[in-house]
């Protein structure tokens, strides 16, 4: 860490572009940003990329370790450190015991602020741990308490600084909500150093971080110092928070840790993919936020970046390929359609079974509707859905319905599943025969081939279900099937 600090020379605070920009129009601003010529634009973009990388990487571990709110606490707790670091720049030491404090000397020195903030952040986490260990106060209260107390001290210090007679306090107010445009060359060097450090640590200690995040007990059992890894991680998080402060602000910096990582968590199950995704999301939302806040003066960067990240999360939340809410809803809909189709096929099968007929025979929709206890309209809708899937054919202006070979096979399978399951529940699970139907109605649609084979192995006699009806077997399913044109119609009910 000290190496990193050595990279940072002391120099004056560069001018803020936000102030210069006030006159120009939206289009001009956008052009200035995209043309990338302005050094402060470059700094802002590079800074956002850095913070996206470091927050994204560490955020993943924070999210899987369920420490999101520790990150939040830490980011609020750095505020008094920021103020103190700011003040310390006014201290000059001319001898070992000869310190003097000159208000006029106060500048915004990134290195001092960095140190102050890290110390405060670490002190905050230390306080949380001590509270949890020595009292009965639970984690959530300890976090909230630390967060707010530290923040209050910070507010007192800040308001005191604002009361001081110094022309140099500009910049400190930007720590609340962040202003990417205020990032200067010194900040960039600091950010670069810290980001490299974080990337290196995550790369080198990936295994250890993974194991301790997944199962701390196991990690201890293979003699990994989980406690130290935890502290090290917290220190890195403090670093990441501090370098992100300038752009995102104290209040929302935790969101840059949590939100991109949580979005990545929704999209993948593998840790290394999650890391890459989170970094990507972090960078995108960071740059986007910087861009938007650049367009108009007075718009703080932090909230824009956070909204960018939230938008990414929202997309993952709704549209994620596996866990997305809309995706799942769509899966649910198509599954219930399938269940619907299978139920209609089953009813068709049962009608034929009742009249002891051959699979090639046709059934009128009216009969089917009676069997399903539904209206004719409903049934004809279902029939056309079945036809679309090639499971049946329709004849006589859609009034007669006829299995195709694949439809017959599917129907047999469903009925077989149903009856096998009923048999299993009664014989093996001791459930009364008149209570198994409802369960089987559900289960018939989810039984996989393996389970069916296992059921067949387990049950001695699979020819009759508990109600005495025949269970369609292999021979039935693969019955030679020669559908003639519309079969002889007009059979009465047998």
């Amino acid at each position, binding site marked *: 860490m000290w190496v990193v600090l050595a990279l940072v020379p002391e120099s004056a605070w560069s001018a803020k572009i936000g102030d210069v920009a006030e006159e120009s129009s939206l289009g001009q601003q956008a052009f200035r940003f995209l043309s990338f010529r302005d050094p402060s634009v470059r700094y802002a973009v590079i800074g956002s990329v850095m913070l996206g990388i470091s927050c994204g990487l560490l955020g993943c571990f924070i999210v899987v370790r369920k420490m999101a709110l520790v990150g939040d606490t830490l980011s609020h707790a750095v505020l008094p450190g920021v103020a103190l670091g700011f003040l310390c720049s006014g201290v000059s030491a001319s001898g070992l015991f000869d310190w003097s404090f000159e208000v006029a000397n106060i500048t915004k020195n990134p290195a001092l602020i960095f140190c102050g903030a890290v110390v405060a952040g670490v002190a905050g986490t230390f306080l949380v741990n001590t509270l949890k260990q020595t009292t009965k106060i639970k984690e959530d209260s300890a976090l909230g308490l630390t967060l707010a107390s530290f923040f209050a001290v910070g507010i007192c210090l800040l308001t005191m600084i604002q009361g001081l007679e110094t022309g140099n306090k500009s910049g400190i107010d930007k720590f609340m909500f962040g202003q990417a445009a205020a990032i200067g060359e010194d900040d960039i060097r600091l950010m670069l150093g810290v980001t490299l450090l974080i990337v290196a640590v995550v790369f080198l200690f990936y295994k250890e971080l993974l194991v301790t995040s997944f199962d701390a007990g196991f990690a201890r059992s293979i003699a990994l110092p989980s406690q130290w890894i935890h502290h090290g991680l917290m220190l890195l998080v403090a670093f990441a928070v501090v370098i992100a402060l300038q752009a995102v602000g104290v209040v929302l910096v935790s969101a840059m840790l949590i939100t991109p990582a949580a979005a990545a968590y929704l999209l993948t199950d593998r840790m290394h993919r999650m890391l890459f995704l989170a970094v990507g999301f972090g960078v995108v939302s960071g740059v986007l936020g910087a861009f938007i806040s650049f367009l108009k003066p007075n718009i703080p960067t932090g909230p824009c970046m956070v909204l960018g990240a939230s938008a990414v999360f929202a997309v993952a939340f709704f549209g994620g390929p596996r866990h997305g809410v809309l995706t*799942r809803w769509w899966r649910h809909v198509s599954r219930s359609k399938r269940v619907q189709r299978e139920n209609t096929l089953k009813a068709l099968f049962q009608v034929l079974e009742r009249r002891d007929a051959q699979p090639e025979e046709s059934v009128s929709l009216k009969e089917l509707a009676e069997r399903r206890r539904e209206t004719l309209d409903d049934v004809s809708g279902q029939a056309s859905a079945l036809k679309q899937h090639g499971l049946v054919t329709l004849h006589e202006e859609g009034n007669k319905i006829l299995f195709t070979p694949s439809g017959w096979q599917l129907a047999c399978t469903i009925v077989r599943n149903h009856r096998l399951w009923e048999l299993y529940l009664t014989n*093996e*699970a*001791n459930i009364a025969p008149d*209570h198994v139907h*409802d*369960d089987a109605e559900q*289960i018939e649609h*989810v039984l996989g081939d393996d*389970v069916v084979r296992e059921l067949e192995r387990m049950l001695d006699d699979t020819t009759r279900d508990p109600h005495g009806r025949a269970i369609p077997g292999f021979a039935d399913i693969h019955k030679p099937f020669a559908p003639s044109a519309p079969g002889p119609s007009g059979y009465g009910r047998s």
Partner: protein
Amino acid sequence: MADTPATNGVNFPLEIHDLTAGYHKKPVLWGIDLQVPKGKLVGIVGPNGAGKSTLIKAIMGLVPPSSGWVKIFGKPYNENRRRVGYVPQRESVDWDFPVTVMDVVMMGRYGHVGWFKRPNKADREIARDCLDKVKMLPFAKRQISNLSGGQQQRVFLARALAQESDIYFMDEPFAGVDAATETAIIALLHELREKGKTLLVVHHDLPTARNYFDQLLLLNMRVVAYGETEEVFTYDLLQKTYGGRLTILSEVADAVGQRAK
């Protein structure tokens, strides 16, 4: 009981019909059928994860059933809550909570007190009596975090007594208590049974289960057997309960749970 119609005594204290219940649509219990007669002390036994706690929660409506129904004295649980007493698993509450032993027992009376009112002297008397019955009266003013595991269990029991219910569900009241306390608790349960209360008690120790309970419910995702202890406590049935889970049942339950996701 006044509201138990005399008509050939069909109103069982607990009647469960074809109950399938679970978490997030994933069934944990399948097709449970049960009729428990009045004045019985019933032990519920089964391996870990068999769904014993889930059964109690489903009866109390804390876990929604996906099919079937439960009746308490012939009425749905919601209409007869008052007559049900519940002793949860000890770990289910925060023992650092700022209440005294007396406060906890008094909670058992809240159902009788009603909205906007405070417990009166009679309630306090009852609470004291119940504490006395479990020999915890000297601890009445202690904060609950200063109790040992067995003492905590007795406090829960006293609270259930204070509810003055007709049917009790107890989830592992013997977990982590010493032999003396166990004997005391079982004596108390017998006393309650003599008063005509019905008790369903989740229990983990098979050898003692045989002596403690009138009836046993062997549970493993479904009712393996239910009946008088002598009839049910057989090697075969116990083997069926404990030996090997019904792998298919849990596999299929997982498949259903997956589908719901």
